[in-house]
């Protein structure tokens, strides 16, 4: 039985009269590949936001590596091994790609409090950044400011930053969103190459990707877990079909 890395217990969120997350309980173990799917408005991103700490739940708890992190700010959860990407690319537009990855590495090593040595004085980390970028096929454009990259490549940088943190749990919010047809290949390859002991939760609408990548699927509808099982079971579940087609 592999290690339980992430758990949500009866996670619940209301915005006034709007009940967006209904008592969601999930478990993620090391090596898991969990896809979170559901119709638009089902509350997938809100759920991920509560897990990552961007949004506070109304009730329920989030557990990371056996510890209750519900009250802890986002930055602390990151340092405890949780990383995420955003549905809309969130990058520093004018920083060079290489620098941005180095920044993630500095943060990981706790070096961003150091104010005297130049950023060029960390050859080991620079090499690691370079290597990570090359493994994702971004080596050529490492010196470009991120805003100059094609959108598909920006999504890759987004993933690179999350991976640079060497997380134990990775939350991917629609990594393929907005990526033009021809640019998706490298992203798919990157997904396949993710470390095997990493616990991954991915939100996606692209069903081919979901069935190719996921070992388990959770279907969210109107904020509640509708079904939780293997891809085969989900594919054949009549309630899932209703949830999608009924909308």
């Amino acid at each position, binding site marked *: 039985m592999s290690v339980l890395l992430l758990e949500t217990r009866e996670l619940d969120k209301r915005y006034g009269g709007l009940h967006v997350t209904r008592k969601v309980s999930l478990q993620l173990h090391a090596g898991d590949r969990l896809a979170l799917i559901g119709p638009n408005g089902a509350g997938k991103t809100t759920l991920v936001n509560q897990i990552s700490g961007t949004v506070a739940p109304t009730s329920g708890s989030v557990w990371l590596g056996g510890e209750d992190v519900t009250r802890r700010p*986002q930055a602390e959860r990151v340092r405890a091994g949780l990383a995420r990407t*955003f549905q809309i690319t969130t990058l520093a537009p004018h920083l060079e790609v290489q620098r941005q990855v180095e920044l993630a590495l500095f943060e990981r090593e706790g*070096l961003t409090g150091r104010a005297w040595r130049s950023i060029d004085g960390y050859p080991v980390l620079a090499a690691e950044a370079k290597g990570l970028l090359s493994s994702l096929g971004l080596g050529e454009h490492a010196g470009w400011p991120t805003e100059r990259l094609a959108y598909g490549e920006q999504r890759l940088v987004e993933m690179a930053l999350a991976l640079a943190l060497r997380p134990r749990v990775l939350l991917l919010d629609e990594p393929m969103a907005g990526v033009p047809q021809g640019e998706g290949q490298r992203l798919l390859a990157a997904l396949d190459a993710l470390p095997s002991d990493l616990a991954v939760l991915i939100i996606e609408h692209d069903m081919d990707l979901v069935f190719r990548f996921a070992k388990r699927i959770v279907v969210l509808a109107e904020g509640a877990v509708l079904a939780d099982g293997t891809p085969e079971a989900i594919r054949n579940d009549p309630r899932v079909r209703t949830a999608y087609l009924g909308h």
Partner: protein
Amino acid sequence: MILLVIGLLAWWALPDQLGLVTRIAITALFVLSLDLVVGIAGLATLGHAALFGVGAYAAGIFALHLHVDPLLGLMVAIAAGSLLALASGAFLLRYHGFTFLMLTVAVAQIVASLAQKARDWTGGDDGLSGFTMGPLLGLFEFDLEGKTAALYALVVLAAGLYVSRRVVDSPFGLAVRGIHENRARMAALGTPVVRRLLAMYTLAGALAGAAGGLSAQTNAIVGLDSLSFALSAEALVMLILGGAGRLHGALIGTVVFTLLHHTAASINPYHWLFIIGAALMAVVLLPPQKAWAWLRSRRGAKA
């Protein structure tokens, strides 16, 4: 380094303009500290004069009541600026954008009102005066021609620039620049955003306080205008003029604006605002960067 050379050249070549040189150096240090906040950290502020003013008053009060050694006074000024930055920053940095901007104005105006009220300490509307500085390092007297003052100011400016450069080029500086460009991204990387911004704000407070202290010491007087909104606004104008975010832009902007003001005022003391106003508008409509880029592309085409 280049700065020191130019400064020394100015110091040597213009013995009757040393007052101007000193003023430029002090203002440049102040605008440099503003660049750390506005250009690097991305926090637009119109209350930066408060940090300058407390440094000035602290140095003045220290010299008047405690000790006339300039370097000790400078330390006191730096401490004053840092403390105010730390205290006000802890409150201000919970807010963003326009709200943050207006709150900086409020804090600065409150400090200015308090300074005006506390006449016994600050001299109120009349200003704080009556103190004479002791010799710098025990050796160099502050002479009437202003040679010592100019050199003192230039050296402190160079030191400030050096420190700023190192901090901005460090992992800390990179993180702050990251926060400027995308706060959400930095939070997702695990950065304690407010803590980093507060540290940068405090450093800026230290440099602004130093500038204020220099001003008090080289002029031997501190007035309420060192806390004024006009000073904050002028510094911001100088920074934008020279280009925010690159540190040396602060120096360029200060020199250009001050010289412009100086020459315009000597041409016509009543209408110098015409010239400055027109110059500012021209700079925005025809940015110097575009002019440089265009020139460079012409040269490249010929090659």
